[in-house]
């Protein structure tokens, strides 16, 4: 039997231990709760810059989206333009001037106040010709300087030397930087800010304590405490980590992984339908290309290109390579781009017989299963594509078999990307190439440099001094017309005609439009994957985790 004093001492000791245990549990719970406010996913490459004005690679675009504050934001779900840092805006009739009325009482993440000065500073920096920014270049519709006029601390007008098509929408990509902050581009207006960066490993973003937005109930946004971005280029490892619950979402999922995940956990995968991205091939039509003249003659013939297009089974490409998560492409614009897609256009029918007839009409003939041209040259050419992209390698091999049926022998060559770029942009030592357009925006003006015959990115025949064909001259005229018009209807008419010419002349043989596939874990609340980039976290400030 214990003495009362000993009993009390024991009780106190037990109480202390219980308190300690309770404190430890609370600490654990607290850290678990904090950890639960963290979203985790992967970047496929190292971000090259945190300066939102210099962004050009996908990883840096992601960081800009998560940390940058913009004047207007296109709602990726409704595709409508919504006010952000700007309460309202007005575009002049000639499309050269835009006036923003800004919200007041907003600060950057380091406390520096936000005002029209910052917008003026940002635009001047962006439009500095020495910067060579892809974002800045989209505004560069003509020679001359941009003028910014600060009307008041919350009002600014920006005047461009020439009309800019879709002027207001372009500001979705312009993250405002501070004119005064000592932290330069690290002082941000977006929902998150860069907290820690371990090159090659992870990037940690923490919620911006000064973020201006609140939800309908008055709660401060974002709901998440932090976002951890792991740098992981390998898709197999990314998939493995998602299955193990180490990451919460895969923004762009390969179709084979989609199906495998759907078989076991269908609630985790999302197919938002056809995206804006396309896969296409084209022939080298450069006059000075180091190719035999007879091959140049083939590639420069629209009949030849159309025949090849007809001989490719797009349905099989969509069904086999993308497992049904793609659709045969029609032209330069995906049907998912509802406003700009020309509904009169239909996918090219698969018909090897018709293709062969068309080629025979051009003077080609079949000899012992081999197609030969008028001069007796066997139709043999190579298709190059970038190695490491399994979908493109498989498409190229399927195209090889399709064209074999009409006696065309194709050699598939996969090259590392720098070698491929060098052939396409400098030496022009290639015959046909299979690539794709990704992260495509809605406005066709973003493809201006692809369609203008004088442009470097006029990929089948870059930098023509004057348009070498009448149809290219027509496309030049139409693209300039749509770029200089502020009337959406007129712009659509012009671009509809561009699409028709593109399909008739087939400088690009459009193959498929991939579906926007993604995976989101059940931990994540509020996700609603869409087709526009970024598919899964477009509404990141309203996402939370269980």
């Amino acid at each position, binding site marked *: 039997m214990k003495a009362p004093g000993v009993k009390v001492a024991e009780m106190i000791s037990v109480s202390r231990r219980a308190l300690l245990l309770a404190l430890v549990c609370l600490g654990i719970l607290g850290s678990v709760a904090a950890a639960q406010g963290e979203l985790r996913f992967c970047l496929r490459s190292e971000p090259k810059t945190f300066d939102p004005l210099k962004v050009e690679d996908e990883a840096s675009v992601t960081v800009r989206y998560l940390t940058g504050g913009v004047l207007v934001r296109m709602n990726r779900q409704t595709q409508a333009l919504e006010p952000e840092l700007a309460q309202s805006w007005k575009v002049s009739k000639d499309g050269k001037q835009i006036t923003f009325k800004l919200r007041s009482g907003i600060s950057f993440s380091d406390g520096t106040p936000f005002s029209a000065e910052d917008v003026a500073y940002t635009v001047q920096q962006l439009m500095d010709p020495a910067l060579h920014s892809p974002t800045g270049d989209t505004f560069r519709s003509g020679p001359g300087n941009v003028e910014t006029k600060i009307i008041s601390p919350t009002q600014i007008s920006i005047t461009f030397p020439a009309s800019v098509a879709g002027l207001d929408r372009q500001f979705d990509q312009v993250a405002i930087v501070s004119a005064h902050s000592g932290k330069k581009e690290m002082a941000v207006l977006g929902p998150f800010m860069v907290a820690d960066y371990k090159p090659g490993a992870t990037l940690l973003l923490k919620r911006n304590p000064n973020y201006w937005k609140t939800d309908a109930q008055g709660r401060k946004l974002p709901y998440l405490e932090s976002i951890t971005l792991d740098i992981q280029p390998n898709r*197999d490892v990314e*998939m493995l980590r998602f299955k193990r619950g180490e990451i919460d979402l895969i923004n762009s999922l390969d179709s084979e992984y989609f199906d495998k995940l759907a078989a076991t956990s269908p609630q985790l995968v999302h197919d938002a339908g056809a995206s804006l991205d396309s896969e296409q091939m084209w022939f080298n039509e450069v006059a000075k290309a180091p190719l035999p003249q007879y091959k140049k003659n083939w590639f420069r013939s629209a009949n030849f290109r159309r025949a090849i297009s007809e001989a490719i089974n797009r349905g099989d490409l969509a069904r086999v390579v993308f497992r049904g998560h793609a659709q045969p492409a029609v032209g330069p614009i995906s049907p998912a781009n509802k406003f700009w897609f020309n509904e009169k256009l239909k996918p090219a029918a698969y018909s090897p017989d018709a293709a062969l007839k068309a080629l025979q009409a051009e003077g080609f003939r079949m000899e012992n299963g081999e197609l030969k041209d008028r001069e007796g040259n066997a139709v043999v050419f*190579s298709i190059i594509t970038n*190695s490491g992209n399994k979908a493109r390698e498989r498409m190229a091999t399927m195209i090889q078999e399709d064209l074999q049926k009409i006696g065309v022998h194709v*050699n598939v060559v*996969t090259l590392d990307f720098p070698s491929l770029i060098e052939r396409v942009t400098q030496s022009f030592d290639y*015959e046909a190439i299979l690539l794709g357009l990704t992260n495509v925006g809605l406005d066709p003006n973003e493809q201006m440099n692809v369609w203008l015959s004088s442009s470097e990115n006029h990929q089948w025949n870059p930098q023509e001094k004057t348009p070498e064909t009448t149809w290219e001259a027509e496309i030049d005229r139409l693209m300039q017309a749509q770029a200089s018009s502020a009337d959406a209807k007129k712009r659509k008419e012009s671009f509809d005609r561009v699409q028709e010419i593109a399909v008739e002349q087939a400088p690009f043989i459009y193959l498929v439009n991939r579906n926007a596939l993604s995976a989101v874990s059940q931990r994540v609340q509020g996700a609603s994957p869409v087709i526009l980039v970024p598919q899964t976290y477009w509404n990141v400030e309203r996402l939370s985790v269980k």
Partner: protein
Amino acid sequence: MNVWRRVACAVLLLVAGLSLAANVLAPAGYAKQYREAADSGPSSAHWLGTDEIGRDRFARVLYGTRISLLLAPAAALLSTLMAALIGGLAGYLGGAWARGAMAVTDLFLSLPWLFLLITVRALMPLNVSPVVSVLVTFLMLGLLGWTSAARVLCASAGSFRDSDFVRQARASGVRGLRLFWIHVMPNLKPVLYAQFWISIPAFILSEANLGILGLGVVEPMPSWGSLLKELEGLVSVGSEPWKFVPLILLAVVVTSFQIVMSKQEEVAA
């Protein structure tokens, strides 16, 4: 001949026989795409299933065996001979010769040969014939793959240079290359056999990796290396064990080679 060696010989003969009979066993060939049955499992029509674009995997394994079994050992032989000549001779000569040769060898080990291979690809026409592409690839592998063994051979030859039997031969009037070839070289055989045996699977795998540079076998031709690359989709392959057949086959063939060659190693020892 012991039991293991007999089994190994039988395995090698069986594999060689099957690959030669590919035309009979898989008459549809390695390129035909059964698109309605893409990425399917084993069935009576496709014993090892089909790949992602519907090509019969069994046919591709058979035809791929021909290329890999023929060319990888040839490239391995080339690299072994080069290692013997460079490393062995350097060790035998010793002094500044050995130092110079080993400095060059170490350089070879450190340089990023990826860029030489990229340049080689650029110098080849895009429409190069599959035979030429494969030959050039294995030739490059043979020319670049000798460095590891050269170091070990140099050390081996160096240790024999002043051994009793070499001194005796020298005292008997045997000199120069004759001394090296008749008295030193046979003692290097254990290392040479090891080099040869290691190089075969290494070159088979390297050939597939060189596909990213546009070298190696070209589509639709199969090789063991390209078949093994399917395993890199490990996350999904785990539930498709038939995709491991090329790996098992390669491991069995390489092991059989080694067991058969171990007789030569015993004699050399």
